[in-house]
């Protein structure tokens, strides 16, 4: 279901777009006008005022950030740009405007596009001259004083995310122990941590995908399960899934390799290629996952999705994978998402028999196998989610400094221009709290920085996760006494 905030923005978008083609008095203008009027009536039964504001890179409705995803990005981007063109911070509706008032407002809005000559004050004067008092233009804000992004809040969120990440690792490890004694794992705990992670991801306090850069060579299977969960959650959020769907996806991803816990370690950790018999054993892990999950006997819709994802994630989009059921049936949606997240994390993690691939190479492999191993549309959406230089990628700049990507640019046209943090100078000396540079906001100056190459972190003894979460891990970082959350 689309949120009311997004619906409101969509309706405004339609209205303004239509106004670019037709005068508001034109018949073609009537439907978007009526839709917006109807929506305003409905929303103002709940809210006294509707304030739509652009702050930094986000839009807020009544102080709450509007979630972006693959589908809504362009609309939200358009609204922000329109506000910039008018030199305003947003709009406010304090009453339901009449139809003539709304028409006048739209005319005013669409005809004033020179930010050097206009602003909120001037536009409000024009509104007052028309006798419109139900709508107001808002001044531009660089930062919310009491709301919005707060650096310490971001640190607290990172801390919470780390705690949940570590707990998720624990849940998977406990499951491994309990398999041995034929008892089930604690689904309840798994749900709690996954749901917490979903809430943190949705809140967009920091680059959630950075969590998937936590790599532990000694505990690959457990680490991998949690990383696939993190990636799947971020991916699901970007696809516009509901909170519950993202939660189910996260659970499915967390347990997608559950059956591997029953594979003999000498096969699982073999430092070389599998022979035929070892490969045959390895290929049984999807079935083993299902059987173990089935033994718990709790079989609701969420459990079914989890089992299906565990069963299908190696079947391949074209059904050429395993297990081979003999049926050419399309993979379940959740299975396809998990398959991509699984492959990406596996490729970008050091394994017992091979070094990790660079993230850019892993993405290219996904794209080259779109349509055979992976769903082509989902691969495309995945690249849009993680960016061309995913969070945690170590890059060399044209200045010969080393930097870690800390945030992906949400604009699909600017995925190659992420935000980076310097981690080593040109001489290779590590810098603990290097400055950040947003490559998209350099305005083409002569001294602008660009990415020259992508590197393996271990060649430079760099743990990227350390840099991404240093502020949350250091002593003295702001954090609550105990873990608590408000819903």
């Amino acid at each position, binding site marked *: 279901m689309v949120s009311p905030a997004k619906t409101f923005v969509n309706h405004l978008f339609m209205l303004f777009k239509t106004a670019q083609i037709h005068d508001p008095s034109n018949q073609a203008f009537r439907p978007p006008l009526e839709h917006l009027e109807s929506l305003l009536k409905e929303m103002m039964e709940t809210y006294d005022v509707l304030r739509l504001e652009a702050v930094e890179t986000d839009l807020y409705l009544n102080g709450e950030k509007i979630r972006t995803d693959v589908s809504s990005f362009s609309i939200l981007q358009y609204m922000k740009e329109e506000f910039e063109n008018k030199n305003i911070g947003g709009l406010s509706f304090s009453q339901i405007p009449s139809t003539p008032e709304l028409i006048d407002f739209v005319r005013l809005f669409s005809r004033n596009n020179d930010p050097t000559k206009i602003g909120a004050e001037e536009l409000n004067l024009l509104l007052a001259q028309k006798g419109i008092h139900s709508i107001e233009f808002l001044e531009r804000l660089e930062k919310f004083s009491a709301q919005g992004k707060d650096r310490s809040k971001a640190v607290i969120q990172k801390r919470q995310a780390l705690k949940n990440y570590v707990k998720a690792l624990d849940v998977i490890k406990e499951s491994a122990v309990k398999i041995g004694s034929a008892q089930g794992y604690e689904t309840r705990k798994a749900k709690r941590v996954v749901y917490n992670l979903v809430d943190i991801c949705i809140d967009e306090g920091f680059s959630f995908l950075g969590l998937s850069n936590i790599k532990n060579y000694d505990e690959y299977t457990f680490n991998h399960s949690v990383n696939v969960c993190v990636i799947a959650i971020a991916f699901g959020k970007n696809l516009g899934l509901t909170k519950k769907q993202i939660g189910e996806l996260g659970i499915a991803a967390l347990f997608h390799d559950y059956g591997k816990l029953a594979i003999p370690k000498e096969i699982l950790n073999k430092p070389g290629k599998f022979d035929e018999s070892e490969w045959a054993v390895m290929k049984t892990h999807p079935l083993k996952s299902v059987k173990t999950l089935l033994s718990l*006997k709790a079989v609701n819709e969420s459990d079914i999705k989890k089992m299906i994802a565990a069963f299908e994630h190696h079947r391949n989009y074209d059904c050429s994978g395993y*297990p081979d059921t003999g049926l050419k049936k399309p993979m379940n949606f959740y299975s396809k998402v998990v398959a991509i997240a699984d492959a990406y994390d596996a490729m970008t993690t050091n394994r017992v028999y091979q070094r990790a691939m660079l993230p850019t190479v892993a993405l290219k492999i996904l794209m*080259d196998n779109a349509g055979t191993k992976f769903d082509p549309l989902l691969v495309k*959406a995945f690249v849009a989610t993680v960016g061309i230089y995913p969070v945690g990628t170590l890059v060399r700049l044209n200045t010969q400094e080393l930097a870690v990507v800390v945030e992906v640019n949400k604009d699909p046209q600017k995925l190659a221009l992420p935000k980076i943090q310097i981690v080593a100078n040109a001489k290779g000396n590590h810098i603990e709290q290097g400055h950040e540079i947003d490559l998209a906001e350099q305005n083409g100056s002569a001294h602008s920085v660009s990415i020259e190459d992508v590197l393996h972190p*271990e060649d430079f003894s760099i743990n990227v996760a350390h840099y991404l979460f240093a502020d949350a891990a250091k002593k003295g970082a702001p954090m609550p006494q105990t873990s608590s959350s408000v*819903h």
Partner: protein
Amino acid sequence: MASSSQHIQYTEEYFQKASQVVRALDRNIRSRKLYAENNPTLLRHHQELLDLLTPFLEDHHELELLVQPFELRIDETSVYQNNHQQESFAFRLFSDGIRSLSFREGLSSEETAEFLSAMATRQSDKFQDADAVTLFWEKEFDHIRYTVADSLLDEPTIEQKSTTEKIEEVLDPQMSSYRGPSTEPDEDIYEDFKVTLTPVSVGALFQERTVVSQEEFNKIRSDLLECEKPSRLILDFLDMMLAVLQEEQDPQEFEKTVEILGTILENNLLTGQIQIARIMMEQVHQFSSRKIALAEKDPQLLRKAIKILWPASRVNLLILSVNQEKIGNAEDLETLVSLMDPQAIPDLLKQLNNIVDLNRRRVVCKGIARLHKGDLGIFMPMLSSKDHEVIQTALSILSSLKNEKVLDLISTLIQHQNLTIRKESIAILKNYKVPRAFRILTNLLEDSSEEIRLLSLRLLSTSQDRALAKSLAEEIQQKPFQGKSLQERKAYFYAVAKIVGDDFIPYLSGILSSKNWFGRQELNDLYQCATFALSVVGSPLAKQTLENGVRSRNKSVRRYSEAALRHMSGTPGAPSQEGH
């Protein structure tokens, strides 16, 4: 949204009303554990709760409760207390980590029901794979807020390290050394994936392939919606389950897995999801076409699986589910029944009269007919029942079968004292074009009941037996024939006309041109019978004969001929177009 509780005046009246609301909440949670969803008591309790809660929230905007181990408080005042662990919903909330619970103005009946359902589930969940926090989270309440003390996160890890220690460990800057072979992935991995490693600007490489259009996004969304459909989900699940069963080597494990399928089947029956239950059974029956590891050792594998799926308790559940208001279409129900365990038929038959809706009962009977697979003895007890409804139900099933042994079963029923049962038994004979059935019907032409005789004649008219037709025609010409009712006489003419067609026309034509047969009334009746028979023959010659009749000097002949022509054209009351 900020809490508005700091603006509330805490009066004695306020606390009293709040207590009433909380008691009503408690009552509702208990009711939900006892009663099914549409139970009148449950609905009444729910309405009583809304009658208290809604005005409270309108007046005070919010009801915020602080959760203690066995108590709920507002500010410092207790509004609910129950020290019994199993019963206290405060205890349930507290033990799951909830420390405050707030209901806000705008809370709807539906959202309230979702909350109560979550609490009732929590109280009764035997699997314990969810708690209040996860259940509330899944509901995504708009007007209910809660805070959670997530002590789970503060527990030591499995290695007995604190969370902080573990975090420091995973973020250790020294944890950067790759301790395996220092080789790049094998060249053939890249070859397998058809990747060429050349130093190209990745920006340009990826740019055109990363912007998801609205149309593409819509396709992704519709794929998701498709996969969320219960019927799709169950198919995916069944495919997976059957793959598990295919590979299973251990008979006990095989049975356990089938039992799990049985649990799901049961859940679907409970919720009236007959279509899904049908899909499940169809997939199970596909065992016979799949190569199953155990099948060579045990050829009865499929039968065993179906037996596991249909114990007596589940058969009873099926009958209960059939009585639910909405259960989908008749075809699903009939097919589902036909795919059950044949040994469940006696249980099904016993329960049939518990099916309230007669149409659904008939559908189930049809399903049983498909299921029985030749063992007719199971119907014997029903046929000798004193309850006529039971007998009728059995006949309904038997009428769908094509088995000559059915004639043995119904032979005594044909002479039953109840006329309806007699007729229904006789009606079954229409499915049997065999000499025995024919003999029974011709004997019934002498039956003392006119209704029986009429039914037999109608059924015999489909026999195409010309010898019979001749015999009937001879009877028509006998004097005793005139003693039969007009309806019966017409039935004779009907039967002969149906069997011999045009060959009957000369005789019928002779009747229409006759003047002095028997008495006037008898003559008129004959005219009526003859013209009726001509309309039944329906051929061009019959039509011509009727048109001649319309031109007859005899008024009765004209009248009946016109009526017969109208009958042939299918327009009763329409004046004849020809013959004037």
